[in-house]
């Protein structure tokens, strides 16, 4: 495993995507909070590491051990870079769900469609929480009614409804077990 440092542009790209999903919290602030350290049960320093095109959240101790390894996982993989653009990965879902301020909740029927990689259309009137606050093209975290995070979606404003365009969902663990990981 070769660990490389992130460039300034890459840090901006990552922060932009994650701040957009979390809506209120600043990602760099989250990195310094105690709660994160609690989540991954480490008491040492936590930072971002990059291996080829993948971006991980890791602790200093695990990275030291990982230098001798052939394949490395076991950290929180936040996502990956494609031609300089940062794409969010499904592994980050559980972690980011703890910090998300404005998630979208789907009914069981809609949630099932979403897990099957379908886009969801929401009428403006069937959401009392105010869908107007989501701007066109913004990323959101999608939950089901039992507060289980099920994926990421992009909001698209249509004429009389909102479309949740499926970016990535937990169904990928079944659909492409052999290729996605």
């Amino acid at each position, binding site marked *: 495993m070769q660990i490389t440092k992130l460039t300034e542009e890459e840090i901006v790209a990552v922060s932009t995507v994650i701040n957009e999903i979390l809506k209120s919290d600043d990602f760099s602030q989250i990195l310094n909070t105690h709660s994160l350290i609690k989540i991954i049960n480490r008491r040492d320093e936590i930072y971002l590491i990059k291996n080829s095109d993948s971006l991980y959240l890791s602790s200093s101790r695990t990275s030291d051990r990982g230098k001798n390894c052939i394949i490395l996982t*076991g950290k929180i993989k936040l996502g990956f870079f494609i031609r300089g653009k940062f794409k969010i990965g499904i592994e980050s879902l*559980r972690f980011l769900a703890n910090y998300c301020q404005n998630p979208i909740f789907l009914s069981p029927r809609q949630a099932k469609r979403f897990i099957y990689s379908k886009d969801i259309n929401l009428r403006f009137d069937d959401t009392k929480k105010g869908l107007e606050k989501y701007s066109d093209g913004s990323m959101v975290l999608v939950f089901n009614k039992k507060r289980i995070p099920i994926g990421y979606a992009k909001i698209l404003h249509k004429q009389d409804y909102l479309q949740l365009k499926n970016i990535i969902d937990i169904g990928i663990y079944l659909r492409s*077990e052999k290729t996605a*990981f």
Partner: protein
Amino acid sequence: MAEQIISWEFKERWVNFYGKKVTERILRELKQSDPRIIAPNTLYTTRRQLQESLESQGFRFAPETPFNCLTLEFEPFNIVATSEYLSGLLTIQALTSLIPPKCLNPSSESVVADLAASPGIKTCLLAEVMENTGTLFAIEKAKKRIPALKSNITRMGIYNTFILNCDARSFPGLNVKVDHIMLDAPCTGTGLKLKKNKRLEPRILNDVTRQSVIQREILDEAWKQLKIDGTIVYSTCSLEPEEGEVQINNFLARHEKQVQVLPININIGNPGNLTRWTKVYDSQISNTRRIFPDQGMDGFFIALMKKVRE
């Protein structure tokens, strides 16, 4: 049919080693298939929460299951399609898979190696016992089995695991001393019940010899990497003594005065016994555990050993 999968040579051996009555029971049980066992991911949920959540979707469970698990009686649709499964709140597995991690019982912050790890069900259970702390090495030789291992580990939300794609026999090359080792060794799998027994060609006696050689090599190499006072749990889902009691007996002979076989605190199964095999054997063999298919799970052998000195 089980008869087609288990060749007559094996039956004859079982009659010699376990007796006629036990063999008849084994052959009858191998044709049956067990219900699905659901284990909650204790890092993120509890058994009760999971049961309530699944029952609201129409799933029904048997009243009692050992090891804090759930036995599925009726499923309205495949449980794999539920959001609970996909978000890693549960695993589907055989009851026998739950025994080795519970026997090993590693403390948090310890360094543990899981040899021959794929598809990672036991690795996940081990990480649950370790409460997602410490360091866990999951070692798998076959590259095509790595994606399933990775997928399971990421789905279950486990952060303390390194996946190494290398032969378990070359594990010492990494130069890491570990506190505990879990070796669910590659085996002939003659103890597996029919539903899981999907192989097309029957096993032959040569397979037993070949697998037991591999097991011996892995066991010896793993032993070198164990710290003093460290423990290793060895298990196979085979009914052949060469992969179970005889393997451990030979291991004890090779590493005289270094090994202490610890007793296993489970109520299922019988103590390991070699009286029908040989007259001279190590008395510590009685601390191992042999489970037959008629005891509510697959045929299984397990031994827990402690390194007393180098």
